[in-house]
């Protein structure tokens, strides 16, 4: 089934779980910036939870469905319509053949995910459908969608669509500060700087993209004058460049880097990084590795508990 791109939106890309196993070649994981919403959208239409979907950023796309389809939107709130009718989010919706889905402004968060039953059919590159914008490969021709692109749906999935329990996604786990563990170069910063970093509030910067969420606020000063020997960057590393303004590295991040890493966002909070808007407040709190891993397990249990029986 074909889906025509009438308007591409601000930055719409095909994403799935991401591309793993190629970091030693300098290849970023990519994948959905909010993987929790990717999974929910897919499960709603009966797809494999990591099937390729469209990730829309701040302004959604307008898409023309050649034939009828079942789709679901999840993630940030987006004003979506088919003709006169508003399209509900977080539930499977049928769109008739010839229907035009208009996704407008994204009002809470940054990214809305559109899953279509069967998934999107794009060639896998190194095992993933995800678009690598910096490398220029994956997804649709390695780039953002453009008007006139034609998407094809796949034949994946086939599980029965699911329904969310009422209010289930309104109480996503842990809305508080972004939880971090100490980074590999945490000792490059004095205890006072570390306390200051945790106490300070930051705001999301306009300069952010999928490679890094840039923050502005209290500059963090390293007590080391030496240069870091370039080393591997874990997903979610909070690095401190020379100007002291933290950058949270995520999905499209460089695999290696030369700035000290003061902290690391825990895996259970990574999906939240993908939804931080410019000028949003960002605060950090320190947790232990044990708590971080427990939080990830709890999130996995939450994912299983949100569905109607």
């Amino acid at each position: 089934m074909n889906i025509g791109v009438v308007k591409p939106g601000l930055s719409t890309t095909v994403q799935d779980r991401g591309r793993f196993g190629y970091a030693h070649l300098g290849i970023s994981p990519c994948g959905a910036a909010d993987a929790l919403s990717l999974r929910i959208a897919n499960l709603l239409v009966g797809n494999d939870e990591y099937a390729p979907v469209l990730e829309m950023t701040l302004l959604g796309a307008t898409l023309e469905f050649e034939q009828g389809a079942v789709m679901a939107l999840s993630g940030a709130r987006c004003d979506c319509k088919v003709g006169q009718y508003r399209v509900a989010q977080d539930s499977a919706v049928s769109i008739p053949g010839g229907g035009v889905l208009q996704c407008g402004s994204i009002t809470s968060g940054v990214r809305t995910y559109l899953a279509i039953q069967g998934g999107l059919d794009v060639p896998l590159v190194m095992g993933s459908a995800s678009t690598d914008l910096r490398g220029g490969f994956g997804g649709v021709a390695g780039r953002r969608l453009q008007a006139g692109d034609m998407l094809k749906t796949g034949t994946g999935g086939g599980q029965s669509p699911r329904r969310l329990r009422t209010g289930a996604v309104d109480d996503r786990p842990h809305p508080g500060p972004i939880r971090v563990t100490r980074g590999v170069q945490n000792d490059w910063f004095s205890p006072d700087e570390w306390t200051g970093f945790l106490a300070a509030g930051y705001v999301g910067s306009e300069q952010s993209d999928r490679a890094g969420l840039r923050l502005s606020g209290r500059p963090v000063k390293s007590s080391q004058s030496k240069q870091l020997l370039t080393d591997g960057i874990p997903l979610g590393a909070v690095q401190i460049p020379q100007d002291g303004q933290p950058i949270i590295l995520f999905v499209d991040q460089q695999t290696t880097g030369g700035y000290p890493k003061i902290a690391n966002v825990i895996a259970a909070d990574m999906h939240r990084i993908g939804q931080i808007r410019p000028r949003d407040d960002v605060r950090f709190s320190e947790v232990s590795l044990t708590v971080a891993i427990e939080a990830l397990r709890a999130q996995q249990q939450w994912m299983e508990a949100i569905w109607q029986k």
Partner: protein
Amino acid sequence: MIQKTEVRNTGSAPEKFDSTVALHYSSERSSGVGAPPRMQIIPASDSSLLIVFGDAMSSEIQRQVLGMFHALQARQDVRIRNLHPGYVSLLVDFDPLDTTHEDVAEIIAIAAPRESASHHYERSLVEIPVCYDTEFGPDLQNVATHTKLPAEDVVRLHAGATYDVVFLGFTAGFAYLGGMPEILSTPRLATPRRAVAAGSVGIAGGQTGIYPTVTPGGWRLIGRTPLRMFDPRASQPTLVVPGDQLRFVPIDRGEFERLSRERV
């Protein structure tokens, strides 16, 4: 630089992971010939461990990083999601829902070559043809002026050396090369170019490298290769892998054009 003496993550309660002494898989013996490599395994995040082999660049440390990288690659353990070699360390990434820091540390300990001398892995010598014409190397004259060498000597020295592919990073397929003759060191441009052509060969400080794709960049460009350093569709997506050796082979404009046509 990374200097760790113990696993930190100082929560108030003792960490299950922190108390795992076995993780400090660091030999206290001196690293003479035949001694096991000294390494420390520290948690870098809830999903990764960093293996640190030392705090200063050296060819011995490089061998250890690459030996461990290849040893882990060869094991093809599905619990390991990604490996990121660096100058003195190797980051091992995993999904903490599938495995634990302890288990990955165990995998690392088992994979560790017993002796420095056994850091054997297959390494290829990859020849990269480079056209050093001014059109492709707009900064060659600049490097010549800075190094007080004639441009021909810059090319001769650059192409005369054998380089080590220490690791790849920055962008897909970008190789960090060790072994550029020190005399060629030239600071990077004050203002980076907005777009550098794929295949461009440049110098930045004491480093040389090849831009695999079009990116902004501040390296001094001295030439260009017609080869594709990165091809996402190829079964081996990059021309070089960590641990390879590399030489630049000067070619003229005609050869550059011929190889460019062959590539398509």
